[in-house]
C-alpha cells in the first residue's frame, strides 16, 4: 500500500513539474531543477500571486482537483511535495 502510494505520488510530481513549467511559462527552468521540497514562492522558484491563482486552474484542468479557499491554498502550495500530497488525497479520498 505504502509503495503504491509512493509510486502514485512520484507520478503526480513528475506531471506537476512539467505542467508548472508549461502553464507558468517558466521558460528557463527544467523539470529536474524543481526539487520536490523547493519552495514555490518567494526564494526558491520565485512564483507570485498571479502564479498562485494559475496553479488553481492547473490543478482543476490536469487533475480534476479543486482548491476552495486562500488559506487552504497557502498550505497546499508550498512545494511540489505538498501539492502532490493534496492531489493524491483528493483523488483517493485518503
Amino acid at each position, binding site marked *: 500500500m505504502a509503495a503504491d502510494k509512493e509510486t502514485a505520488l512520484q507520478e503526480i510530481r513528475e506531471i506537476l513539474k512539467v505542467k508548472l513549467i508549461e502553464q507558468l511559462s517558466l521558460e528557463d527552468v527544467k523539470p529536474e531543477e524543481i526539487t520536490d521540497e523547493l519552495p514555490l514562492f518567494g526564494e526558491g522558484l520565485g512564483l*507570485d*500571486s*498571479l502564479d*498562485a*491563482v494559475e496553479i*488553481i*486552474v492547473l490543478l482543476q484542468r490536469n487533475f480534476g482537483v479543486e482548491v476552495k479557499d*486562500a488559506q487552504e491554498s497557502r498550505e497546499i502550495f508550498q512545494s511540489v511535495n505538498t501539492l502532490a500530497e493534496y492531489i493524491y488525497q483528493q483523488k483517493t479520498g485518503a
Partner: protein
Amino acid sequence: MSLPSTVLITGMGAVSAAGIGIPATLKAFQRPRREPAPVTRFESLLTFPVFEVENLPAPPELKKMRTYALALTAVSEALEQTGLSNLKGRRVGIALGTTVASQLNDLEFYNAWRSNYAAPMEAVDRFLSGNLAAFIAKELGVNGSAITVVNACSSGADAIGAALGWLQSGLCDMAIAGGADELNRIPLCGFNALGVASAEACRPFDKNRSGLNLGEGAGVMVLETEPSAAARGAESNLLLAGYGSAVDAYHLTAPHPEGRGLRRAIAQALTTANVRDDEIAFINTHGTSTLENDKVEGSTLADLFGNTPMLSTKGYTGHTLGAAGGLEAVFTALGLREGWIPASAGFETPDEETGVIPVREKTKVHGACALSTSLAFGGSNAALVIKYRK
C-alpha cells in the same frame, strides 16, 4: 506655458445599479439596500452576485452594444444639465474609459470562427462601427479629439484627467469625459479566475471582506473652461481642480504594498489643484473589497489623511471597471454639492491592517474639496480633486 484655466463641471450623468440618473442615485444613497444577485443578462456557470442595471432604456440598435447604451444614457443626462440643445460649432473633445467595449470579444462570432474558419461579420462590423468615444462623438456630431482610455479599472478617472489636460492646453473648450462598462461574461470569468470575486455582497474595507462584486454602469461629466461657460452664460459651482496619475512599476495584477504609485498620484492631484491635504473634506475611495486593494489603498489613505471621512460606493454599484472612475468622480462632486456622503455600504468590522474606518452612515461633510481615487491592473493609479466654489 500659460496658466492653466479653471475647468468647470457643467453637467453630470450617472447610471449604475444604484440608479438610472442622478436623482435615483441620490435616493439610493439615502438608505443602503443592496441586493446583488447572480447575473441574468447572459448564461454562465458562475453564480456569484453582481450589480446589474435594471430597465436600462436602450434603443434597439444598441441591444448588443450595452456599454454604448449605458454611456449614451449618462451622456444625455449630463448634456441636459448644460442646457445646450446641441454641440454644433463648439470645440468638444470626448474621452471615455472602458474595458470590455475596447475588445473584439464577441463569443458568438468567435465560436463560429472556431467551428469553420469563417464567420458572419456582424459582430466585427459592430465593433468597427466606432469605438466608445468615436461612437459618442458621432452621436453628438462633434469632431474634436476622441479617445477611448483603456487603463483597466482606472480608465474612467484617467479619461477625465486626459480631458482636463486638453482643456487646460486649449485644445478644446468643452469635453465629455468619464467611463462606461457593461456586465460581460469575459470579465466575469476573468475576475473569478483571479480569485477576487466574492460569493456574498461586497464589504469594502471590512475585516471579513471576501472580494468584489462586478457591476455595470456609466459616469460622465461635461467639463468646460470658464471662459467657454461664461460666453454662453452658464455657471457652475463645481470645478475639476486637479488630476494625478502614476504607475507602481511593480506587478501586473498586484498593487505595490506601500502604495508607491497611489501616493504620487494623490500628491500630484493635490499640487495641480493647489489644495492642501487638510483641505480634503472626504475621500471617495476605490475600495473594491478585495483583500489586496483595500489593504494597500486603506493603509495608504490612513497614513496620508488620518481621520478624514472616507467611503467606498462599490457597495451600491459593484465594481464597474472602466466606468468606476467616471461614476465615482460624479459621486464625489455630488457629495460636495449635497453636503453629505452615503454610508460606506457593507462595512461593519474594522480591519487593523487597513487602518481605515469608512463612514458607517449617511454623513454630513464640510469643506470645499474632495478626492476620488482609482487603482488598476497594471499598477495604474489615478486621483481626482473636485472643488465646490460657494
